[in-house]
């Protein structure tokens, strides 16, 4: 019912004042099935957030269309919940109010409050429900915005690096929670991350995006069953494969950046052993 069809979408930012334009990607074609969990992976600046925003209806695609459940996306809607890369909390509302704000159009006040507290508990913030955003740490703000999106219970969940600022234990706890919710409710989830392991652990498919020119480089099916363990052979294999491709992308950027310097002494020192060190964390 709520599959996401991204049809030949391209995005170009125009700078009217300087008459320049920057094309982030062209002709992205991706069909996310209803109930599918898809991760977007790619180097910084390749357009993951931009694509997510287009699906959310917050940015306009320069070309192409996006359909969510057969309706063309014209603007944002409560059928698509978003966890932004930055926390995006209203500074004048307490933590509780921030979460309630997102759901009080659908629930009665008491229900909204109950629900908000439940999800805040989930992200371990029940002690801070009366704090204001500026009194929270970076990770805490991020957790509030995760709680908010989950509490909204949308059909499509768009998450932009939601767990980036969290410690590994909290993150792994939230992995389980998201998976639990996903399994129980059959949500469609599009999930941006920099963490290859995270993407393998959670997704049905992994979309690898590239840069200059931007677009989809490859799509990986994560065919093996859940729960997945990084120690599994298939897991490690896929991880290595994705990692290699991503490294290739980065190297391309690096060559462009360094130009002739690329083979200079310092650069060699820094980057030569690059592929072999294997510290893909």
């Amino acid at each position, binding site marked *: 019912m709520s599959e996401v069809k991204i049809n030949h979408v391209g995005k170009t930012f125009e700078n009217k004042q300087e008459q320049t334009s920057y094309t982030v990607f062209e002709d992205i074609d991706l069909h996310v099935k209803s109930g599918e969990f898809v991760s977007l992976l790619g180097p910084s600046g390749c357009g993951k957030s931009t694509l997510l*925003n287009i699906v*959310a*209806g*917050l940015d306009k695609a320069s070309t192409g269309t996006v359909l969510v459940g057969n309706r063309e996306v014209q*603007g*944002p*809607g*409560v059928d*698509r*919940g*978003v966890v*932004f890369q*930055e926390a*995006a909390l*209203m*500074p*004048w509302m307490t933590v509780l109010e921030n979460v309630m*704000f*997102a759901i009080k*159009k659908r629930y009665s006040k008491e229900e909204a409050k109950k629900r908000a507290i439940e999800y805040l508990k989930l992200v371990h913030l029940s002690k801070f429900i009366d704090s*204001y*955003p*500026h009194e929270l740490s970076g990770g805490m703000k991020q957790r509030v915005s995760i709680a908010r999106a989950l509490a*909204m219970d949308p059909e499509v969940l768009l998450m932009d690096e939601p767990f980036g600022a969290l410690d590994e234990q909290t993150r792994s706890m939230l992995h389980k929670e998201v998976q639990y919710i996903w399994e129980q409710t059959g949500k469609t989830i599009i999930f941006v991350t920099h963490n290859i392991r995270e993407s393998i652990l959670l997704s049905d498919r992994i979309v690898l995006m590239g840069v200059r020119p931007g677009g989809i480089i490859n799509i990986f099916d994560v065919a093996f069953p859940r729960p997945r363990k990084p120690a599994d052979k298939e897991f490690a294999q896929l991880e290595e494969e994705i990692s290699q491709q991503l490294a290739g992308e980065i190297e391309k950027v690096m060559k462009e950046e360094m130009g002739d310097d690329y083979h200079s002494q310092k650069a060699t020192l820094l980057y030569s052993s690059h592929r072999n060190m294997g510290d893909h964390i």
Partner: protein
Amino acid sequence: MFPSPILSFIELYKGFFETGILTVALTTSLGRIGLGFALAVIIGSILGIILATSKLADETLGSLVVALQSVPSIVWLPLALVMFQGGTTAILFVIVLGGTWPMTMNVRMGIKNVQPLLIRAARTMGYKGYELIWKVMIPASIPSALTGVRLSWAFGWRALMAAELLGRGGLGRTLLDARDFFNMELVIAIMIIIAVIGLIVEYCIFNPIERKVLTRWGYAK
């Protein structure tokens, strides 16, 4: 001819407790400024919101606002007199004209300066149109609107003083009469009243609100 501070305070005492003319004038003026200020703040906010959210309005109505805001109160007075048959309404009109622009401009800028991310977030939660303005843009622009309210108050007073020349009593009129008949001490006494009211409103209303807002919005150190 230079007024003496002590005599000014004596005038102040007399005006309140002996002749009572200051009591009467102050009551009249306070009633007017209270209503006029409230209207200015409301109208200014609405205008500011319209200008900030509609590009079309900003380019048409906005021009009108810009064009008219430099026209001084004295020019408006005769017009107001014609438009409103009663002097009191005319005075109100002039106060509103004085106080509305600062509010309009500050609310407009406050809303334009709201972090786009907050509006985007709210839109994904299903807020739009009127609700988006009311629940996100306005709260987000409160620090800026506060400055507007402050200026509205001050320029409302100024306009009131100019408007009371119309000859319907009030502090402005008393001030002019006092000036014309060389009671400079009374002039100073009235200035003191205006200043003291300004201070009271500042310290009992604007300042506590501002401190609360700045703390809550996370701007305080």
